[in-house]
């Protein structure tokens, strides 16, 4: 009961704090909370009052941070999405590190866990419902082996939620996050001529990184637990998104695209896996009704302002 005894002095521990989203989060969070950040990366841009521990969560020494710091909530952002990393490294980073986080939360009776999962766990499939609710089966790993460990992390958090009801576990599943973040969708938008699959034009949802931060802040409220999809209001066909971003897509048969990505995988030339071609074939749109009703989440940015953000972000870069 150590964390609870420390009362107001207890802080919020954020893993993956030096990522672009982590940085956005702590800039909002540090005004009202004591923030403890964990990340192996350099943290020179973090606000001065954020305590940064440069350590790998898989190391035994990371337990000391949870033991000593006095933590009232853990926000887990430390997920690796890099398709160029080996499957073993990604699995170890994502699953082993998160298992350690869960172990520390249980051992030190931390009353709140917020996991930033991803809407991709549902997977883009032709027979997906128009809007996927939180209780839908996580089929993302069926075609994309890279998603296997992200689904495992999501499932670990779900099972922790049932086994330890005293810990309020919140799982957020945002759709494609846009803004200053570096992820698959932003890399795709940065391509000179983003490829589209010939004969396909799926509806796309986006969410602004500031809205994701907003959802995380809402999830920190006491008494709140559950799984929530997070997306901006509105959706539109991929072709229109690209047109508004100012890109002229090149239409390629999906089979050729998959083969090209598979053949180039060894060269590590692209940040895309052939399984990710499914995202430009089939929809994976989220039902955000529960987030609105229970979490009280209403996005500040609609799909148009998300697209404007993408346009600005890619045009500002050299």
């Amino acid at each position, binding site marked *: 009961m150590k964390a609870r005894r420390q009362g107001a002095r207890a802080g919020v521990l954020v893993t993956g704090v030096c990522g672009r989203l982590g940085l956005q989060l702590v800039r909002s969070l540090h005004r009202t909370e004591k923030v403890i950040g964990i990340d192996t990366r350099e943290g020179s841009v973090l606000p001065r009052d954020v305590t940064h521990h440069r350590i790998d969560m898989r190391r035994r020494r990371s337990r000391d941070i949870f033991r000593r710091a006095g933590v009232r909530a853990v926000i887990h952002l430390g997920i690796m999405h890099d398709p160029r990393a080996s499957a073993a490294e990604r699995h170890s980073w994502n699953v082993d590190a998160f298992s350690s986080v869960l172990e520390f939360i249980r051992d030190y009776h931390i009353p709140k866990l917020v996991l930033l999962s991803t809407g991709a766990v549902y997977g883009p499939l*032709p*027979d*997906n*419902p*128009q*809007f*996927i*609710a939180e209780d*839908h089966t996580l089929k993302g790993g069926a075609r994309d082996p890279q998603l296997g460990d992200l689904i495992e992390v999501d499932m670990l958090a779900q099972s922790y939620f049932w086994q330890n009801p005293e810990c309020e576990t919140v799982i957020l599943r945002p759709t494609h996050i846009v803004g200053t973040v570096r992820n698959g969708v932003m890399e795709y938008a940065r391509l000179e001529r983003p490829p589209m*699959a*010939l*004969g*396909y*034009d799926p*509806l796309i949802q986006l969410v602004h990184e500031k809205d994701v931060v907003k959802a995380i802040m809402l999830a920190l409220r006491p008494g709140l637990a559950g799984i929530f999809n997070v997306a901006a209001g509105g959706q539109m*066909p991929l072709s229109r998104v690209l047109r508004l971003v100012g890109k002229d897509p090149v239409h390629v048969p999906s089979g050729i695209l998959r083969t090209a990505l598979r053949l180039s995988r060894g060269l590590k030339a692209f940040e895309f896996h052939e399984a990710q071609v499914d995202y430009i074939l*089939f929809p994976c749109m989220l039902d955000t009704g529960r987030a609105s009703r229970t979490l009280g989440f209403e996005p500040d940015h609609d799909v148009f302002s998300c697209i404007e953000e993408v346009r600005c972000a890619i045009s500002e870069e050299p």
Partner: protein
Amino acid sequence: MLDAPEPRLIRSMYDKWAAAQPWVNIFLQRVGQVVGRPENLDLLLDRGEVVLVFPEGVKGIQKTFQKAYQMSEFGLGFMRLALAHSCPIVPVAVVGTEEQYPAVWDAKRLARLVGLESLPIPLQTLLPFMGFMPLPTKYRISMGKPMHFDGDPDDEDHVVGEKVWVVKHTIQLLLDKALRERRHVFW
């Protein structure tokens, strides 16, 4: 439907196979149709939309011409959802479709090779210069009165099945009447 004070677009449910086909998926999505999943039907009925369902499913288009206008077995899902949402069912019968592409043979072996359950071969594909050109049949669409059903949507299959039989029988009567009144296939 569009003459009503608050016009509503009819949203039909299409098979997931169509959702995976290039261009077909774009067309269906652009004209406001949705993949036939219970979640989609649930959402649309919640929003007060008009939904067009084909309770025969793909079996309805797998028939050869000998079985024209003899309906296959209906699924129960549409009735369970109608009961859950207390929405009426309007029976619709269409005459003219079976002669448009009269299937003379079901190439099951060929279908298995391309990953389909069946592959009905229309007459025109066997004739020179016809290809997939549809025959210019006249469509006759008959609508029955709205049917209201009460009951537990989670009832046993045989209980729900009885209600489904009433719908199927009503549509069969509409079909038989339209066929009797039809003077010619093409006009």
